[in-house]
């Protein structure tokens, strides 16, 4: 059976071109870039190229790029590192809908004497910037707000937020793991101080990511040891990963516009048709300000895990914010923060597309989905005819 992969916000296929660049770095060019000999030392050039490509995609300088082990490390390093550099301030502002990598890191700070403010969102998943402005004060060490939400795809007005926050002399970090490669970003024209991204969300390999640190931003190193990454992130470089990520950034920059038109039109076709054909369905999140690849749809009175398993039988991969799929007994914290009622929070399905998806796959899903919803609604004691 063919796999239809609509779970690209979870992870993506490594692009063939990326894999090609990585291949020789395992068994042939396996040296350590820190070595004095040419065999190892020549890899420094490859890392430099990767850094330049990443900088090009983000619109920043290569020296502002630190390679890490992924999004979670970048988030932790940004949060903990910037607080360590501002020991006199004890307040952190974030949102209720952050990825756990940020939310858990912030909540842990409460055990170390910090006050953490979690901004709420409205029913569409939007922030109230006036609330943020009101909370900013001289004791605020850091504001960390995601660029785009992983579950709903809702994009926050990050450039505007960054300007407001840094204007008050406060450091601003954004988890841009879901945004990079999907929407255009230009750090040269933004006031963002710190930005996290992850390789495997943009057709690069797993286990590698980037922390962008604006020149002049004070950041205590998160990992200490060797002198790699100019002493800002110790540990022998993940050479294949870094080179692969560099290539993935290059491809993302090339394909951004054209492919997003294609991905967006596929997403819209899938979304609009499902909303029309499936009774009791509703879209979660701000329809306008949204990633072009993400669609989060709730199906009332039925449960997400059951939907996923039925889709799985047809080889269709998606994800759900239901309690049963989250490993806890409560549904998605993002949907709950948005005030999505329990009647539909348990039955939410996220489709996230990529440039490798085709119209045939969308048509196939449109054909399979309505009977699944129909079948589960017939099983549900809450659906009355």
């Amino acid at each position, binding site marked *: 059976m063919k796999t239809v992969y609509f779970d690209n916000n979870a992870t993506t296929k490594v692009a063939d071109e990326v894999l090609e660049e990585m291949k020789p770095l395992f068994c042939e060019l396996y040296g350590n870039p820190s070595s004095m000999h040419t065999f190892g030392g020549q890899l420094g050039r490859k890392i430099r190229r990767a850094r330049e490509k990443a900088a090009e995609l983000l619109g920043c300088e290569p020296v502002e790029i630190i390679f890490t082990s992924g999004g979670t490390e970048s988030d932790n390093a940004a949060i903990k590192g910037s607080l360590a550099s501002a020991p006199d301030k004890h307040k952190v502002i974030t949102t209720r809908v952050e990825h756990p990598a940020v939310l858990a890191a912030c909540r842990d700070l409460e055990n170390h004497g910090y006050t953490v403010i979690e901004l*709420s969102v409205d029913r569409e998943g939007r922030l109230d910037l006036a609330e943020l402005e009101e909370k900013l004060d001289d004791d605020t060490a850091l504001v960390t707000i995601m660029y785009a939400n992983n579950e709903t795809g809702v994009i926050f007005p990050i450039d505007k937020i960054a300007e407001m926050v840094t204007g008050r002399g406060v450091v601003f970090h954004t988890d841009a793991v879901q945004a990079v490669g999907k929407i255009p970003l230009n750090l040269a024209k933004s006031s963002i101080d710190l930005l996290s991204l992850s390789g495997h969300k943009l057709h690069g390999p797993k286990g590698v990511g980037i922390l962008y640190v604006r020149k002049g931003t004070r950041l205590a190193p998160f990992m200490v040891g060797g002198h790699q990454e100019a002493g800002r992130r110790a540990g022998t470089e993940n050479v294949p990963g870094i080179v692969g990520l560099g290539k993935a950034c290059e491809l993302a920059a090339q394909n951004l516009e054209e492919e997003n038109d294609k991905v967006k039109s596929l997403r819209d076709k899938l979304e609009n048709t499902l909303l029309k054909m499936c009774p009791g369905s509703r879209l979660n999140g701000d329809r306008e300000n949204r990633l072009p690849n993400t669609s989060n749809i709730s199906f009332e009175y039925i449960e997400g895990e059951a939907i996923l398993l039925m889709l799985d039988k047809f080889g269709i991969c998606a994800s759900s914010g239901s309690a049963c799929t989250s490993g806890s*007994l*409560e549904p998605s914290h993002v949907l709950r923060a948005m005030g999505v009622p*329990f009647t539909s929070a348990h039955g939410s399905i996220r489709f996230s597309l990529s440039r490798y998806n085709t119209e045939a796959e969308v048509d196939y899903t449109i054909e399979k989905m309505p009977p699944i919803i129909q079948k589960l609604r017939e099983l549900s004691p809450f659906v009355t005819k």
Partner: protein
Amino acid sequence: MWEYTDELKDHFFNPRNVGEVENPDGVGEVGSLACGDALKLTFKLDENGRIKDAQFKTFGCASAIATSSVLTELIKGKTLEEAAKVTNKDIADYLGGLPEQKMHCSVMGREALEAAIENYRSGGKKKHELEGRVVCNCFGVTENEIERVIKENNLTTVEEVTNYCKAGGGCGGCQGEIEKIIEKIKGDKIQELTAAATRRTGKLTNIQKIHLIQQTINEQIRPALRAHGGNIELIDVEGDKVIVAFRGMCAQCMLAEYTMKDVVEAKLREFVSEDLFVEEDKESASQPHEHRE
């Protein structure tokens, strides 16, 4: 991805006896939308008092649907006395086992069956009601129900109890109480535990005590309040009086007083000292709160 058996997948993809029996003799409804699963069981008896037809409707995950399907298969042809003997374990065994975290689905099946039989015996009047004191407010689970799953399945930890009946899986505020129920059933004397606790903390210096209070708040109390969008701050300690302030949702919560005694004070007594009592900081209560929705 859950590890489901082939039997379970079969009953999920091809559920037996879906629907509602016409003019049923018994109706059992358990669960709710908020909980994430719910089951409506209907049955009809033949002239000999055997279950002639049983049908179900279920809102829930694959294992909730599969266990409901199995339940109807298991009770068909049985007298009510025979059917009443079906346990959650019978349902799980029929499917070749369930993942630990899904055991509550089999318990929901057994509960629906009991509710339906009860409904029949009361002449169709009685609806399922919670019996006994509610321990877990998040999922509405009573002491009777918790005792029963512990006894029937030989459970020994709070985590297992959560897997079997969801109790303790929401805010976590009742986990201490569930532990006590487990202890009670195990036959261990609670007094011994309390004595041990007092012994452990008998020689605390003031600094050690404050440190332990802060640690207990960080590790035991805050995560529970956090789950409901609330928070807590330690303001001061005067002798055995611990002064705290509620933040976030807790500050406006109608159950705050209950939380103060049953969660905060109980945890501090359990982990620090039996002599502690808690007071809310009046001054900070009048201040505007963060985290307002």
